[in-house]
């Protein structure tokens, strides 16, 4: 277990800033998820911690000791890549024991450790197989066992489940989550899957264009995004541009009392699941423009003043395109953020 600190990390490729003053602390035994779109810099952070990528500037510390210039093989930080990269010429057992062999650990101890991990990751019966003889899930477990064998200070997971089908992904997520809790290993997961980040991590850091734009517990970042950019990571949401004055939010749908002391031009974020269909013909009248069936709910897009409003309906609340319905939009519960300079909202 180890505490990891990133201080002012900078990295550019061909003049393009990939990391722009990244600072983050991951506590001992904590599970941190780095969430962001492709190119946001999350993988670069992992490689910087692992030592496989040189930084332009910044300091990385493990347990308050700087490791920025320590060679990759002496950092005690293991990275599980999305491509897994099991050694093709080694059996499962040899792959798992590789790190310990490199540390010149006694053979009997390597054998014992490999057997423990084979049991823990349900790989019994596959220990003498080669990687090409394994299924995707088995390869995944071997890659994780190989990483865990060396008992690293920090475990880095770079989108390790992205190439698995949904059911296998879910079971691997649970397995890794349970293992992490059981072993108490400080873990950093890079993902662009919000569900994965929210369900697995103790805290989530959201990255955009090489910067961390919000860090917090999954509930906090999901419920209380600090900006529209953060909010957009969590899928379709409604953004109402308006202004706040004396606790009142004024937008194209009316004036609403809001429990906030903020003032000025702001955007109110309301999640689709917070909007309900009004049966007593009160609220905002919209025309259904499109519907999407998503298994558990129907997603509707309603049109009002040429703007889209996303909301959900259940089986008993089925509507057709062109239907007119009333919506209860809970402006009182919305999250107020600064208006985006680049985007025009409702």
């Amino acid at each position, binding site marked *: 277990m180890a505490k990891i600190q990133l201080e002012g990390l900078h990295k550019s490729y061909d003049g393009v800033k990939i990391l722009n003053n990244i600072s983050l602390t991951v506590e001992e035994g904590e599970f941190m998820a780095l969430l962001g779109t492709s190119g946001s810099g999350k993988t670069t952070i992992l490689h910087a911690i*692992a030592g*496989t990528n040189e930084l332009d500037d910044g300091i990385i510390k493990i347990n308050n000791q700087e490791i920025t210039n320590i060679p990759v*093989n*002496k950092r*005690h*930080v293991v990275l599980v890549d999305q491509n897994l*990269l099991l050694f*093709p010429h080694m059996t499962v057992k040899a792959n798992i024991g590789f790190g310990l062999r*490199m540390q010149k650990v006694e053979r009997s101890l390597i054998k014992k450790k490999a057997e423990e991990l084979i049991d823990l990751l349900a790989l019994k019966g596959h220990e003498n197989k080669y990687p*090409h003889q394994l299924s995707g899930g088995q390869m995944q477990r071997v890659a994780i066992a190989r990483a865990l064998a060396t008992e690293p200070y920090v475990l880095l997971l770079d989108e390790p489940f992205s190439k698995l089908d949904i059911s296998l992904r879910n079971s691997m997520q649970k397995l890794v989550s349970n293992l992490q809790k059981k072993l108490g290993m400080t873990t950093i997961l890079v993902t662009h899957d919000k569900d994965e980040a929210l369900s697995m991590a103790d805290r989530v850091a959201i990255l955009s264009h090489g910067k961390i734009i919000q860090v917090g517990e999954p509930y906090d970042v999901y419920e209380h995004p600090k900006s529209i950019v953060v909010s957009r990571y969590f899928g379709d949401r409604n953004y109402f541009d308006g202004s706040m004055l004396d606790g009142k939010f004024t937008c194209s749908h009316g004036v609403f009392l809001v429990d906030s002391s903020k003032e000025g031009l702001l955007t109110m974020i309301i999640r689709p699941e917070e909007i309900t269909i009004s049966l007593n013909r009160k609220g905002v009248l919209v025309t259904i423009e499109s519907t999407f069936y998503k298994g558990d709910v129907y997603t509707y897009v309603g049109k009002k003043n040429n703007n889209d409003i996303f909301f959900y309906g259940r089986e008993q609340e089925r509507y057709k395109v062109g239907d007119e319905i009333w919506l209860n939009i809970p402006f009182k519960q919305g999250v107020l953020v600064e208006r985006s300079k680049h985007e025009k909202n409702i």
Partner: protein
Amino acid sequence: MKNNIIKISQPYLMVMPALILIVGIFVGGIFLGFIQSFGYFPLIGLDELTFKYYIEVLTSPTFLKSLGFSLYISFAQAFLSSVLGIFLAIGIVTTIKKDSIINGIYKIPIMIPHTVVALLVFIQLTQSGWLARLLFNFHIIKDMSSFPALVFDQMGIGVVFAYVFKGLPFITLIVIDIVREGYNKYVKVASNLGANKWQVLRHIIFPLTLPSALSGFIILFAYSFGSFEIPYLLGSSTPKALPVEAYIQYNSIDLLDRPKAMVINMIIAFGAFILVSIYQKLYSSLKVKMPGGAL
């Protein structure tokens, strides 16, 4: 029934023109050599099958020396080419960018004919060659004759050198993509798991290249075991490599030596056959172990 026969024989008939060449020249030649090795050579009045020539050749000290010399040359050059070829591939991958023109230079010796290579080695390594002159001009040797005999020598240094000149880039060519893939994919993982540079070579790069390098080793061994030009042009007068010995016997004024030449040729062919079988067995067993991996 008739249609069936036509249908089955059709592909064979279609490849027949090409097959006639292969069957006629290669298999026919082997067959003629084979029966001549058993003393059947009606042209000079030998028309009885006998083991006599095999016994004569296999008990001849000259033959045994030649066999030993051929095995030694083949092994030495294939081993040196394989080891140095892997190291050259590692050197190129780790120090030179993939799109650099230097990447192609190492392939040049592959395109040079063996006879030209023999000539180049002759120019460089004889006692009056470039190397001897260079050492003499730098006063490293007192006179040119004190330069060691590296060509026409009993150790076959010139012969081995010429083969390595051709074989080393060949091995580099067949392992370089595996080395590159090894470095691109697995070296970072291995380092991340605690391996130092030497451990990366020992546990990742060498094992990954081994199957291909071994295949290359067998090809080089088999080729030089049956190859004539280089040991003929650069080898010592004694011992001679097997193909040279066979050529001399074949060209002998006494036509009665012809069956002995064929015995030697049959032994060379048998050796090549054994090596090809080992190669195939090795290749298929490694392919089962590492499909798409290091092969």
